[in-house]
């Protein structure tokens, strides 16, 4: 026996169980949709930021006609093969404002009986000029990187110290990169570019294995790092004068992913906002009914000393309680659905060239709080007018209206 605002509100909500459960479900659907959509968007966005910050290059020069394949390779780790003459590196390095230039060479292995392990996206890089792989090692051996070493992305199952072999070459897993959500870093195996060339040459000598079609001196992409304060658009423009190449900036990649993001989630967000509005109107209509049903009771409460603000608080509190429970339920359902379908979600996002990394627990908690708070705000906004109406009734009129 302890009367409080909470107990009164809970008891009132328990009076009409079907109505309460139906409202809870409606609120849960909306808050669940908001929470899931924002979590997925956050995941794509943060993965993109994290991945591209590790990318470290201001410009990426690729052969003409391979821009889409490069973006796909970069974002999802989808193996792509395209080559150009590596001589372009000297030209780029000579441009004013260019700080560093480093090549990358893309290969794919085809699984073979004796000499090739697994289908892998192999990237040759030059450890002497590299500024995008070695700085981001999360785990590594306590020695310098050597010619027979490889570095694996976080999505690979290999561990530091493991032995792997490609095209008859025994290689040591020297280090592992941290997870980024960006395919290039998570899925690929990085090895010395010189080793990649010699491996391609050796592949021609192995019977029964499709040889790697690669010419020494060719590269797939040139990564360009500029000086602080350099005019990147100008450098990009100068490089683009070469008709055989295309220049990709980090901004290009982010924009294209964000466009996909907006296309995919835009309609969901619009639908969520429409649902929020519909929920607010529904709550308003239902609380108007509740106030009408309980007019006599509200009049009696006023007669025994409840102030207008107490009545207002009681009604708004009921709405806030209902929507907070509904909001929490929605978040809970959202988490369960996302966990159950997480592989499908990530697969589908990757198919749309969108990297994905689950947001950290702290961000998920923040998004959950925002979704619940949004539900509560909708509840309060919806119940505001009926509460105001209920609280300003003359006690005796309210009592008589309920007779």
């Amino acid at each position, binding site marked *: *026996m*302890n*009367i409080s605002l909470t107990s*009164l509100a809970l*008891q*009132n909500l*328990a*009076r009409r169980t079907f109505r309460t459960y139906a409202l809870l479900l409606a609120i849960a659907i909306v808050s669940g949709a908001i929470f899931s959509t924002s979590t997925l968007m956050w995941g794509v966005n943060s993965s993109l930021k994290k991945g591209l910050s590790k990318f470290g290059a201001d410009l990426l020069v690729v052969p003409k006609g391979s821009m889409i394949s490069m973006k796909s390779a970069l974002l999802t780790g989808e193996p792509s093969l395209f080559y150009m003459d590596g001589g372009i590196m000297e030209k780029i390095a000579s441009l004013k404002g260019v700080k560093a230039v480093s090549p990358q060479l893309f290969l794919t292995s085809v699984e073979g009986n004796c000499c090739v392990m697994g289908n892998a996206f192999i990237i040759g890089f030059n450890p002497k000029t590299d500024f995008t792989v070695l700085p981001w090692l999360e785990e590594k051996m306590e020695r310098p990187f050597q010619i027979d070493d490889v570095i694996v992305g976080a999505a690979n199952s290999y561990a530091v110290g493991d032995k792997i072999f490609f095209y008859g070459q025994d290689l040591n897993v020297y280090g592992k990169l941290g997870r980024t959500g960006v395919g290039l870093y998570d899925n690929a195996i990085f090895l010395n570019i010189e080793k990649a060339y010699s491996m391609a040459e050796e592949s021609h000598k192995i019977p029964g294995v499709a040889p790697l079609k690669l010419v020494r001196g060719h590269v797939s992409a040139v990564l360009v790092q500029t000086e602080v304060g350099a005019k990147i658009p100008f450098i990009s423009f100068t490089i683009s004068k070469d008709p055989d190449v295309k220049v990709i900036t980090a901004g290009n990649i982010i924009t294209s992913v964000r466009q996909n993001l907006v296309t995919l989630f835009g309609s969901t967000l619009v639908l969520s906002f429409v649902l929020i509005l519909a929920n607010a109107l529904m709550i308003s209509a239902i609380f108007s009914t509740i106030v009408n049903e309980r007019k*006599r*009771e509200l*009049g*009696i*409460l*006023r*007669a*025994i*000393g*409840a*102030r*207008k*603000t*107490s009545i207002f608080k009681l009604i708004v509190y009921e709405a806030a309680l209902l929507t907070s429970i509904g909001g929490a339920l929605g978040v809970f359902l959202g988490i369960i659905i996302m966990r159950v379908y997480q592989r499908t979600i990530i697969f589908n996002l990757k198919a749309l060239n969108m990297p994905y990394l689950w947001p950290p627990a702290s961000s998920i908690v923040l998004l959950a709080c925002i979704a619940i708070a949004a539900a509560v705000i909708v509840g309060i906004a919806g119940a505001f007018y009926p509460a105001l109406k209920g609280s300003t009734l*003359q*006690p*005796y*009129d309210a*009592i008589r209206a309920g*007779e």
Partner: protein
Amino acid sequence: MIEIKDIWKIYQVGDQQIEALKAVNLKIEKGSFISIVGHSGSGKTTLLSILGGLTKPSKGSVHIDGIDVWTLNDRELSALRNQKIGFIFQFSSLIPTLCAIDNVSLPVIYGNRVMKNDRKKVYEYAEELLSTLGLTHKLTAFPSELSGGQQRRVAIARAFINKPAIIVADEPTGDLDMQSENDVMEFFSRINEEYQTTFLLVTHNLALARMTDKVHSMKDGMLISANNGGSPS
């Protein structure tokens, strides 16, 4: 003391104006035990509700202990209703989601006059009131589990929980059998004598009215006569 001066209550129904009360004047001394009788629609309940601060008069004033009730703001008026006046309505007026003892204690909680530690005392007093009214075995019963008469007795107990100076009661014994009616009137009388509580009863029941000190009659929104009643006990 309660002083009602030139009270009018006019309702607008469509194009028509209905005068529920017309120039009512009444003085009620502290500790008096009076009743108002009259036919349905004579304005008894409207007068009671204006006096109790539940409905605003169209014209006129109500003074309780020198305070002009209808000039008070919501906070002051709510405090007056909570602390000075106990209401007994002619219909079921319990909160359906609360058990009997919680219904009785509710005005104290709403009055914000008790700290958590004092809640025990409030419940003890609520229990005492319910026991006095013969409901010891129904403390935790919900209104839906009580008969009409039992609900009425819970509502009576609730009116007394804050030990108000004034009790306004609209057909307080309407649902009660003869024995319970006598018990309730005896209880009213005892409270009236012990605490000098002012009682204002509205009733159709002339026998009940005659048990009060003074009987006022109302007709067509006007007080038409006042007779000395009998002893309430």
